[in-house]
């Protein structure tokens, strides 16, 4: 007697979620949690930074902007490397989803660069009396911002999706190799010109609470980046896979996302 046996469920593998439909489902489930974590950590970090951390002896309360400025600067650097990584994976393995992920990261990375630049200005104003100073890190962040803009402009200028993904990956790879070189050269430039005293290295020595607050904000930005990037990737996936069956079912409501 042959009894029908239940087919074994496929084991979960790392590349199970490389399929757009499964990735879409997974990210959909994660999104509410990511937003919750973002809000919680942001609230905690800002509270610690703006109320709990002690007032600085030399710079007063104006320095508190670093609780946004420094995590934003870290994030923009990190996100560029992550972008380059996924873009190159997409190129090397012809993995469409990896390329879509890279494209989705770019605007967020650029936003963090912009945020770091603005908060740098807000810090500079009360501290140095000017809205902008050519500090090494700020200048490097400015150039990194241009690198993001270049990537976004290039992938958007190319109509053919495959060519755009591959060209973007190559540009991101070249860019990520250049980032340390650029940073080094800008530091070099900054120290040998007369304005060398202008440096945010003279940030107040870190009390423990300050460091914790910055770390919390970094994680908050991390969670935010995940949430926003996932939202963007989901939109791109729907757009690119519009001709497939699963998207069809999704829009008709016959499939739970």
């Amino acid at each position: 007697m042959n009894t029908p046996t239940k087919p074994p469920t496929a084991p979960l593998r790392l590349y199970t979620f490389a399929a757009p439909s499964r990735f879409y489902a997974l990210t959909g489930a994660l999104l509410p949690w990511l937003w919750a974590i973002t809000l919680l950590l942001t609230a905690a970090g800002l509270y610690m930074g703006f109320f709990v951390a002690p007032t600085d002896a030399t710079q007063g309360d104006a320095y508190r902007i670093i609780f946004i400025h420094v995590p934003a600067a870290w994030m923009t650097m990190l996100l560029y490397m992550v972008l380059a990584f996924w873009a190159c994976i997409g190129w090397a393995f012809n993995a469409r989803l990896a390329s879509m992920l890279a494209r989705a990261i770019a605007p967020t990375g650029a936003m963090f660069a912009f945020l770091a630049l603005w908060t740098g200005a807000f810090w500079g104003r009360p501290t140095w009396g000017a809205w902008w100073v050519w500090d090494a890190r700020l200048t490097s962040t400015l150039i990194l911002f241009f690198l993001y803009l270049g990537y976004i402009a290039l992938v958007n200028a190319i109509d053919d999706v495959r060519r755009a993904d591959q060209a973007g990956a190559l540009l991101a790879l070249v860019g990520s190799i250049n980032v340390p070189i650029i940073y080094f050269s800008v530091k070099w430039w900054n120290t040998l010109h007369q304005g060398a005293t202008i440096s945010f290295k003279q940030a107040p020595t870190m009390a423990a609470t300050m460091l914790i607050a910055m770390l919390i904000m970094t994680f908050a930005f991390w969670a935010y980046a995940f949430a926003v990037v996932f939202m963007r990737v989901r939109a791109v996936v729907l757009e690119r896979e519009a001709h497939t069956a699963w998207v069809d079912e999704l829009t008709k409501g016959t499939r739970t996302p």
Partner: protein
Amino acid sequence: MTELFVAVLVRDLRLASRRRIDALLPLVFFIVALSLFPLGVGPEAQTLRQIAPGIVWVCALLASMLSVNQLFAGDLADGSLEQMLLAPQPAVALAAAKSVVHWLLTGLPLILVTPLVGVLFDLSAPALGALVFGLVLGTPVLSLLGALGAALTLGLRSGGMLLILIVLPLATPALIFGAGAVGTVEAGLSASGHFSLLGALLIATAIGAPWATAAALRISTE
């Protein structure tokens, strides 16, 4: 590999010799753009002497970027690029040849004209020497990076501006070291550190850029 390199090099130089006016345009742009600065900044000699290295480098950068835009476009349009990519040698040789052609037609004329610029901006002899030497090391870097940009933006409508946006951030180290060398020499110090860094940058770019340009050509023509 050298067959492809030499064939492309000779052909492009021959083509440039038949369009001499076009080949001289980057140089003319360089001189015109340079001359605008005193008009904008004021004729004070001390100021001009100070900003001269920076201006020269920026104008060299812009002149390079404007002329590199057309590096592959003509060949793409008439099908020659396809044939060159079908050569039985690696496309790296093609990329290298095109970069050298660009330097010979844009970078080298700039270098030869710079002593004249030194007169316009009243640079001292050691400063001028540092400027020229820096350009000798740095303009090939600009040509190599420019070729990469041209390959990536091949055939795109927004080509020229997009190319500048992509390549300029990558070119900032060369700009910093090259212009900085002159300032150091004017301050009475040795600029050997700058030149060593420029030299290292040139070597690294010469190794990496043609490979990346060849990859970009394949991506753009598939």
